[in-house]
């Protein structure tokens, strides 16, 4: 159970005075002082105690101003060490800073740690961590009210020993353009789309959870997590305009691991409310052996990442109307008009009508014809029914 103030959404909701006078204010701001480049090693991933791949991603941190999104740490040696036996399991570099091993034979009664040697000779090591097996997710449920749909996780541990949970989800939704086009405008000419499935009408967008979703039942009598909110989808959002699916991964954490994630959450997600905590420096369980002063980002856990998927169809949440403002125009099938409307103004052809004095295309704005305009791909995911 969390006792915190709801994160203020706008400056108006911050304070009563602001409510009444509309005076409170929240503005974008980046202080100039933060210029130094602090490049620290970031260790992302967990030791998978289930029958699945263990992937550890090594990257470097960057400045706030830096728009280049990714600095992978290449050519590192990454090994998992078993406490006591000294058994070592090597993770193979698969590129882009990712290091993998298909299956780690983790013994639940032993502890494990990660050893990393990077290309410049720096040596890093995590603390020994216990293996926490996760109970299965009971269900992923959802309900709907005026504001939209909320998706919840429900889980329980009959042994009452899990207590600290972290969730991640990867959601995918199908969404359609307003019009299903028979034609496309390519290289200055209107072409007929031969394969009706390739007309950028149906799209699938996939995205990973970004918030740190933490739950604790430590204060409850029983280790029962009931209706822990994972995701809120606002009413009439594109996500459930056709069909929506989410796959939820549940990790069980140690208390220390929970504290790390909780502080990381506080440091990045919960600051700024009036009674919000001060941000603070944090250290995880990974250390730089070669230079003890150097901080290392990330926290290593060993757990099973159990998953559960659900689907929500548009007809289950009706009325649900993704709002679009689409109108069609007609464009004479003559080069000048085609050039003007499709080339210059960015309209897209839909279909054609032939009526005196000649052939015309029905057309609309690009977002109404190309589903990819709001994101996603036209490739149907393999799991999609």
């Amino acid at each position: 159970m969390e006792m915190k103030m709801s994160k203020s959404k706008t400056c108006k909701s911050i304070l009563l005075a602001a409510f009444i006078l509309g005076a409170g204010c929240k503005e974008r701001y980046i202080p100039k002082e933060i210029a130094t480049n602090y490049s620290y090693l970031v260790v992302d991933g967990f030791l998978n105690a289930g029958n699945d791949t263990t992937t550890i991603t090594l990257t470097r941190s960057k400045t706030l101003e830096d728009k280049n999104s990714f600095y992978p740490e290449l050519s590192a040696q990454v090994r998992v060490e078993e406490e006591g036996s000294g058994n070592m399991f090597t993770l193979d570099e698969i590129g882009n800073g990712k290091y993998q091993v298909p299956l780690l034979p983790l013994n639940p009664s032993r502890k494990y740690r990660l050893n990393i040697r990077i290309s410049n000779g720096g040596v890093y090591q995590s603390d020994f961590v216990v293996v926490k097996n996760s109970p299965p997710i009971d269900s992923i449920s959802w309900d709907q009210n005026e504001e939209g749909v909320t998706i919840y996780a429900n889980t329980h541990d009959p042994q009452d020993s899990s207590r600290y949970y972290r969730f991640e989800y990867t959601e995918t939704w199908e969404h359609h353009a307003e019009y299903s086009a028979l034609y496309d405008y390519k290289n200055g000419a209107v072409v007929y789309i031969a394969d009706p499935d390739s007309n950028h009408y149906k799209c699938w967008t996939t995205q990973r959870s970004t918030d740190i979703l933490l739950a604790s039942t430590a204060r409850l009598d029983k280790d029962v997590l009931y209706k822990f909110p994972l995701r809120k989808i606002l009413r009439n959002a594109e996500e459930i305009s056709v069909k929506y699916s989410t796959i939820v991964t549940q990790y069980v954490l140690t208390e220390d691991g929970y504290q790390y994630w909780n502080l990381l959450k506080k440091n990045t997600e919960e600051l700024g409310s009036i009674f919000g905590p001060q941000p603070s420096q944090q250290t995880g369980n990974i250390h730089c052996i070669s230079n003890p002063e150097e901080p290392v980002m990330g926290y290593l856990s060993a757990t099973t990442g159990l998953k559960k998927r659900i689907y929500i169809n548009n007809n289950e949440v009706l009325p649900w109307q993704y709002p679009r403002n689409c109108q069609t125009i007609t464009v004479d099938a003559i080069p000048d008009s085609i050039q003007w409307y499709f080339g210059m103004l960015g309209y897209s052809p839909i279909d054609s009508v032939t009526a005196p004095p000649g052939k015309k295309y029905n057309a609309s704005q690009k977002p109404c014809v190309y589903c990819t305009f709001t994101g996603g791909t036209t490739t149907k995911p393999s799991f999609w029914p």
Partner: protein
Amino acid sequence: MNPVRKNILFIFFAVLVCAKGFSQEKLISVSFDQSTFEDVVKDLESKTDFHFYYDPIQFDSFQVSIHVVDKSVPYILKQIFQGTDYRFSIDSHDRIYVVKRLEILTTLPPGFFDKRSRKDSLAYANITADTSGETDKPTNTATSENKLYEIGIKGLQTKPGSAIITGYVKDSKNGEPIIGAAVYVENTKTGTVTDQFGYFTLTLSRGRHQLKITSVGMKDARRQIMLYSDGKLNIEMFDFIPSLKAIVVVAEKASNVKGVQMGLEKVSIRTIKQVPVVFGEADVLRVVLTLPGVTSVGEASTGFNVRGGAADQNLILFNDATVYNPSHLFGFFSAFNPDCVQDIELYKSSIPEKYGGRLSSVLDVTTRNGNKKKIAGTGGIGPLTGRFTLEGPIWKDRTTFVIGARTSYSNWILRNLHNDEFNKSKASFYDANLHISHEFNSKNNLYITGYISKDQFKLNSDTTYGYSNRNLSIKWKHIFNSKFYGIATTGIDNYQYDVSSSANPVNAFDLKFKISQYNARFDFSYAASAKHSLDFGVTSVLYKLDPGSLNPVGDKSLVTPDIVQPEQGLETAVYVGDKFDISSKLSINIGLRYSMFNYIGPHDVNSYAEGLPKEESNITDTTHYNKGNVINTYRGPEYRVSARFAINDVSSIKASYNTTRQYIHSISNTASISPTDIWKLSDPNIKPQLGEQISLGYYHNFRSNTIETSVEVYYKNIDNYLDYKSGATLILNHHLETDVMNTKGRAYGIEFLLKRTTGKLNGWISYAYSRTELKMDDPSVGPVINHGNYYPANYDKPNNLNVIANYRFTHRFSMSMNVVYSTGRPITLPVAVFDLAGAQRLYYSDRNAYRIPDYFRMDFSMTLEGNHKVKQWLHSSWSAGVYNLSGRKNPYSIYFVQENGVIHGYKLSIFGTAIPFITYNFKF
């Protein structure tokens, strides 16, 4: 000839010349604007052959504004004195006598015969000093200024040596005591200041003296006394109601130069009411924040920091009751109803030995005692709140009451806003005060104060927050004899908060916190001799804390009841202090306080492995202590020494050295006082905080004490200041010692103050440069902060400038302006971004390594009062103004959040625009 007859003859003579006077018809032109009478006389004497005879003292507060062309002198004088008590007469030798209303005295001051031939002999004539032509006062009080009061038992001859006068200074209008009035003998350095009951004790040499009594907002009073032996003198002062003809505000306040006390800031409610505040309601704590050396963490907080102390290091007393949360509505209002407050005193460097228990300062808020003569009321209506206060006698001249209440109607406003977010939010408060004073007889007085406040709010979420202060104090004052009096005080103070949510039936909870303290104290004051006055006493506080209880709400709730074990502590202190006037130039105050704290069972106390951080994994043992067992004891002396050396009449140097101890701590990981802050007693694992301060000051007054200036420097050490560890859990923590750490603190600064107390333009300018730094370098306590170096405290704001200015255009119309500038407070900034678990995360800098942008604000207000007729049933005034005139978006905080996987920085301002307000106040 006996003196009485001589006197009558003199009067007779005056009347006679009056009758014989005739006017000379020379025509002259004069033009004066608020000139002194002296100037007028000089001018008239230069233009005519007239000679004036008058007592300058009678005219010291009389100002003349007149413009005439070609008029006779009698005509001019008639114009000047019309509607006043002054009478003039002109004799055949062109001599003009100007006197006040004549009266006969029964005694003639000694020395009369020697001086009768001189002009200033008029000073001994039976003339009253009453400049308020429109007031209607009983003549018996009017005489008191020149009446000679005989004090003590008259011997045949006045013995050499000294004697003591005691008495009360009261407001003639309503009989309320006047606190902090200066009672002194002019031309010598002998004087005192009345205490919280308006009581004074003054040791003087036997013989004749002229006492002067001054207090801000009151007309100066004088008493001629003949001191034979110890005795009593009660003094009534008149409200200063300036006559419309001549504007004078006289307040000879020299106490900043003459008092031994240093770092004492005193503000009367009149001054407080002139300062513009955000919602138009006079606010005690807002004014405190403008004083040098006082800063606040942010806009919406009434927690304040004095000379680098934390917000919990201030002892806030409301008629001796400790107020734990001095704010309402997130700090937009302070807990004190301005209509019930008489004045405030803030001790920031030399804290009198009678106070203890907090490290940094004492803020003493005193309520009014209530009108002794008639039922009266005051009130006001502002944009968010309404208030009403009623006062009056219950039993004439014996018992008075003041009852005040305040409430917000913000909930009503929120309900009427057509916005879902607002409709779901709630915010309201109320408070009520009751103060009763009863006089059994001249030696025994009883005072009862009750206070209750409640706040409740909910901000567009399911969670409701509420908190409440409740206080009761009973004081009995007994005067043993003229040299010795004592006060016995007892009371209960209570603060509690409550957080609850029932939106999710499985998680529905109710979290409570409560602190109660039971006080008893005996304070005595003994005027040992002319040079020594002693204060001593004993005080005891029993603390009872319920540091948190979590309970399920409803049948479906799975919340496990979780109760952090209650704790008890007893703080006892004895003190003695001596104010010693070594010479007329040098005075010292030596105070010693010895305090002791017992942590009392029942309680389970953890022991931790020595040399290892206090963490759960290092608990070696848990010991159970039974009810009433003393678990451990901390004790130690606190020294309070201050000295004043008067260089001359208008300047002095003061120095002080203070040590303080604090046994109760508020632990917070937000920068301001928030309703969910935890208070924790010292226990075997949490040591008391120790403070030590040395300060030095220079004071200089200009223009007959109407302009005060001062410079003070200080250096302060704080030991065992509690700061939270990174990622600390504070609520419902059964072993709080594992989440907090002791730090060392140091603070130093220099403060400048320039203050003009009177005149059309009055106000003050204060500037302070101050630093506050903390240090945690002991790895056995936990991870060291900032590599064990000193780091700035959350409230470290080096430069602070405050300007408060009032300009009175007419009696009914005045304008005020205040300007606030300060360095931005320190923050911890993110220095690196990294990807973890699918999103960008932040790595933060060293603690408090950066600062938010500087703070600047300018407010403006004007007050229009109704007509100034003294006799009308309702006096009303309007005040209107603009808060944050320049509309500057002062950052309350800078913070960074991850939104859709990308880090965004935000600047949060609470008042991002100019806020106009209007308030209606009334009084009857």
